[in-house]
């Protein structure tokens, strides 16, 4: 018995997932009685499909040595190549596209409409087409899991769905972009102007050359839209999020906040009535005043009160950890459905 996985996307996250499968596959097999097998890998220009299984270490070595994973795509699309291929789970980890969600959206729809489960870290399709994806999954008896799309290694979605299932969640306030947090923290700690703190973040590899995705709140807004759909059942998209970035945060504003024993943080707030990403004044010592590049989620519930989760919100193995937890959850459900004993 095996769970056969096709991985679409083999950049930083995809390679991390392959490594994690190689490292943890045996543990999952002993727990759930099924072998986790990689049977397909796609990168942007090449692919390998092998029903007998692909060794994760071999495909990682090939990617490093040759810059590709297998045969050239030569104009063929992922849905075309998977049309007659037998597999159980698509791991969709292509880069986020917040304009139209492609190509990830087509990949996920092709899997779900064929009754194939999807595990993804790709925010774009979820932030833009959550309802369509959920409906496709339901209609075709497939499952879609996306823990890695928000907070990476910080398990906000699964905690909300599975561990806080008896709670009424009033709201979630969160720091979901480590780059912005790093910049705002440097401005407060060192008195740096925004441009200099941004340059530092770019030199350290936290921010891209074009930082707008982070500093204009686009990344945070995509995550807020996913949380609104997944946890609050709101039918909204990225465009519904009221969004203000951190470009206008000045040294003087940071200093004025500090005089009031506050720091400025880019906070995503999601509730049944609020959907917003904006810089906010946070009291020092508050869980959201966290420093560095960590992500933090403050969940406000009726019975448990405030529950706070913090962890790494990005990174190769950190994101892979969340993907692997979703794969494990699917295997656990399979195990229960088939009446096998969980170990």
């Amino acid at each position, binding site marked *: 018995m095996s769970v056969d996985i096709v991985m679409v996307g083999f950049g930083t996250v995809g390679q991390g997932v392959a490594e994690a499968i190689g490292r943890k596959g045996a543990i999952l097999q002993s727990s759930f009685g099924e072998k986790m097998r990689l049977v397909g890998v796609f990168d942007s220009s090449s692919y390998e499909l092998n029903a007998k299984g692909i060794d994760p270490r071999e495909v990682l070595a090939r990617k490093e040595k040759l810059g590709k994973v297998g045969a050239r795509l030569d104009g063929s699309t992922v849905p075309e190549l998977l049309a007659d291929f037998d597999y159980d789970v698509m791991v969709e980890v292509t880069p986020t596209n917040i304009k139209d969600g492609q190509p990830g959206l087509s990949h996920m729809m092709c899997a779900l409409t064929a009754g194939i489960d999807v595990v993804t870290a790709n925010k774009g399709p979820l932030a833009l087409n959550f309802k369509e994806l959920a409906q496709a999954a339901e209609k075709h008896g497939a499952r879609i899991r996306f823990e890695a799309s928000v907070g990476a290694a910080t398990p906000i979605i699964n905690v909300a769905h599975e561990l806080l299932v008896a709670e009424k969640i009033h709201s979630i306030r969160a720091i979901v972009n480590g780059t912005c947090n790093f910049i705002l923290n440097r401005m407060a700690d060192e008195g740096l102007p925004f441009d200099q703190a941004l340059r530092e973040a770019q030199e350290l590899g936290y921010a891209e050359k074009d930082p707008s995705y982070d500093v204009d709140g686009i990344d945070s807004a995509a995550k807020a839209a996913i949380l609104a759909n997944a946890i609050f059942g709101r039918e909204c998209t990225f465009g519904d999020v009221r969004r203000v970035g951190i470009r206008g945060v000045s040294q003087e*504003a940071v200093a004025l*906040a500090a005089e009031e024993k506050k720091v400025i943080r880019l906070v995503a707030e999601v509730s049944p009535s609020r959907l917003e990403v904006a810089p906010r004044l946070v009291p020092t010592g508050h869980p959201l005043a966290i420093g560095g590049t960590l992500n933090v989620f403050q969940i406000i519930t009726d019975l448990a009160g405030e529950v706070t989760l913090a962890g790494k919100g990005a990174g190769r193995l950190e994101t892979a950890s969340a993907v692997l937890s979703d794969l494990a959850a699917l295997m656990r459900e399979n195990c229960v459905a088939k009446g096998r004993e969980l170990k």
Partner: protein
Amino acid sequence: MHADLRLKDVPGQLVRALEPISTFGGNINGVVHHHEKVIGGRISVNVTFEVKGQKQLEGMLQAWKERDVDVAKLSSLFETYEFEYVLAGDISPQELRGITEGIEAVHDLDSVELRYSVSPSTGDKAVLVYGKVKQKAALDRVDDLLRQRAMDAGYLLIGGLGE
């Protein structure tokens, strides 16, 4: 809230009368000491103060009783809700006036203060807007007003976390 306290006319009584306010987390806004107004051997002191809630007020009343401080009058307790914003960007004096007048016109406003700051080195401007309202719904009115003004004038509005 306001309290009319009656103290024995001997040295040290004023401090003994005011101590319970800070002990129970209150904030004294004003004290008027009427030396000339002696009633039954006691002098009158009017105190204006803020208190966190009913429980803390009851603690103060008990402490005054234990210290032999009579409470002649006590205004009713009403709850206030704080708002706090930092504005960053090019904010003109006219805009500051507009913000102040706009907030002062909000129904159920208790108080509002603005603090303006300009960096001598960069010329960056920032304004702290702090205040209190007597009804929770008034927080939304202040928020709507500031959001609209920030959007129209093109400066950054940084709000507090609220509750």
